[in-house]
């Protein structure tokens, strides 16, 4: 029996990168997945490729009604919702004081408010007990990262909102955890490589190799999410689980 047999999940930002890897692994482990993404065409294409166990819906996570609709779409398609993965997020990589006010607001709106709205929409549909929420935070949410000032602040907010929600919801039997990956081989990291290299003065790949051994893979992040979504993690709630190849363990 696969660990997620019969489970029904929504993955926001599921059209590409980490979200897509999560959707794929969930289906491999027996779940059915609704891919919710602001890129509607991308979400549809991903769902087509994943087959009968996947559906797609357009979802802008800054809009409460679109998250409610995504949850409803999962319930209509699969008969319920067991797992909510709030994965959608954006990055802005530049010196802190070069962030415009609009950029700062935007990163908070998507990365923080989007998780808040996603948890709220999901909670109304999740089984009590047994429902699970996994929020995509970042290692940047646990430590300062130059050039990622607004991003890391938003991810720290995800870690803290996860903790508060987990404690408040514990009596219902709904578990809520956060995942904190370091640099992972995704389009997001490809975009920031040249920026970091230019501003830090060290080739990004060399920096990553020194700090975390290598880049992580989306599949590795998906494994952590799948563990937290499964009954294997039945005593885990309010946690922030790190995957960083040893980055945080080392000082240099």
């Amino acid at each position, binding site marked *: *029996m*696969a*660990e997620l047999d019969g489970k029904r999940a929504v993955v926001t930002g599921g059209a590409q990168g980490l979200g897509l890897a999560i959707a794929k692994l969930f289906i491999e482990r027996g779940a059915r997945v609704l891919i919710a993404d602001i890129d509607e065409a991308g979400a549809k294409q991903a769902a087509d490729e994943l087959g009968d166990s996947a559906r797609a819906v357009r979802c802008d996570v800054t809009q409460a009604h679109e998250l409610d609709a995504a949850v409803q779409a999962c319930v209509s398609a699969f008969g319920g919702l067991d797992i909510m993965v709030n994965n959608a997020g954006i990055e802005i990589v530049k010196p802190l004081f070069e962030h415009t006010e609009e950029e700062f607001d935007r990163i908070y709106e998507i990365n923080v408010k989007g998780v808040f709205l996603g948890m709220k929409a999901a909670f109304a549909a999740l089984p009590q*007990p*047994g429902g699970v929420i996994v929020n995509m935070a970042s290692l940047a949410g646990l430590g300062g990262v130059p050039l990622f000032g607004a991003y890391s602040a938003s991810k720290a907010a995800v870690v803290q909102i*996860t*903790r*508060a929600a*987990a*404690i408040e919801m*514990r*009596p219902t*039997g709904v*578990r809520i955890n956060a995942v904190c*990956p370091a640099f992972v081989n995704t389009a997001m990291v490809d975009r920031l490589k040249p920026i970091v290299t230019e501003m830090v003065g060290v080739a990004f790949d060399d920096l990553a190799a020194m700090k975390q*051994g290598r880049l*992580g*893979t989306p599949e*590795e*992040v998906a*494994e*952590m999410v*799948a*563990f937290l979504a499964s*009954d*294997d*993690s*039945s*005593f*885990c*709630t*309010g*946690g922030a*689980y*790190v*995957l*960083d*190849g*040893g980055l*945080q*363990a*080392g000082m240099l």
Partner: protein
Amino acid sequence: MARVEGVPQGTGQLEGKVAIITGAGKGIGKAIAEAYGAEGAIVVVSDIDEGAAKEVASGIPGATSIACDVRSPEQVQALVDQTVSQHGGLHIMVPNAGIGRPVPLVTMDYDEWRAVTSVNLDGVFLCIRYGAPAIIASGGGAIVNICSTTAQAAVPLIGHYQAAKAGVMSLTQTAAVELRAHGVRVNAVLPGFCDTDMVTNVKADFEAMLPLEAMGGMDGVIAMKQGRYGTAQEVARMAVFLASERSSFCNGSPFVLDGGCRASLL
């Protein structure tokens, strides 16, 4: 949160891997040995209590037992050497053996301090010291240190236990960065209070020495802070994840399972 007890059906996550679990004669160590066996590992059940180790091993297909006092460098080295000669290698080491009993710091004898730190900290060092070279020689693998949430915040009366567990977390970090290039991942499992003998045995002492009446005794405090006690089997599921390839990018980190205790300041 629904409790998980009993040995879950495995999915072959540790197929063919040779694993040593110390302190596996009972409690969390026993649950880890059983879970690893269910996942297809070749399990070496080790405990200072030879009879207990033998009995646990007899319930796990293919498992063997080796008595070991983890305070002794010679015995830990022999544990690793015998495992390698019996099974042709070593891939997973779980330094789990630990002891603890409540004593206030100001009345703690030095011998008491040494007794706890020598098992809980020195023992983990020795397992890494002698286990890691064998894992490297076998092509890589994982070390899963069984730590505690008390490595991160204090519970009164177990200062020696906590200092040792904080030391284990530190050793986890050093080992993770030193061994990364050699294909050995090192992580720590940090359980909260579980309903194991170690915890139930000290409950009366805690209630006698601490003002817990208003909270409903030890059980009331645990209900408030963790929701409930954890189970040894739940700790074992985390130990399976960290030993398996599924956690291949996890290294040097604390993996907390505590029902949310550490997530709240209250």
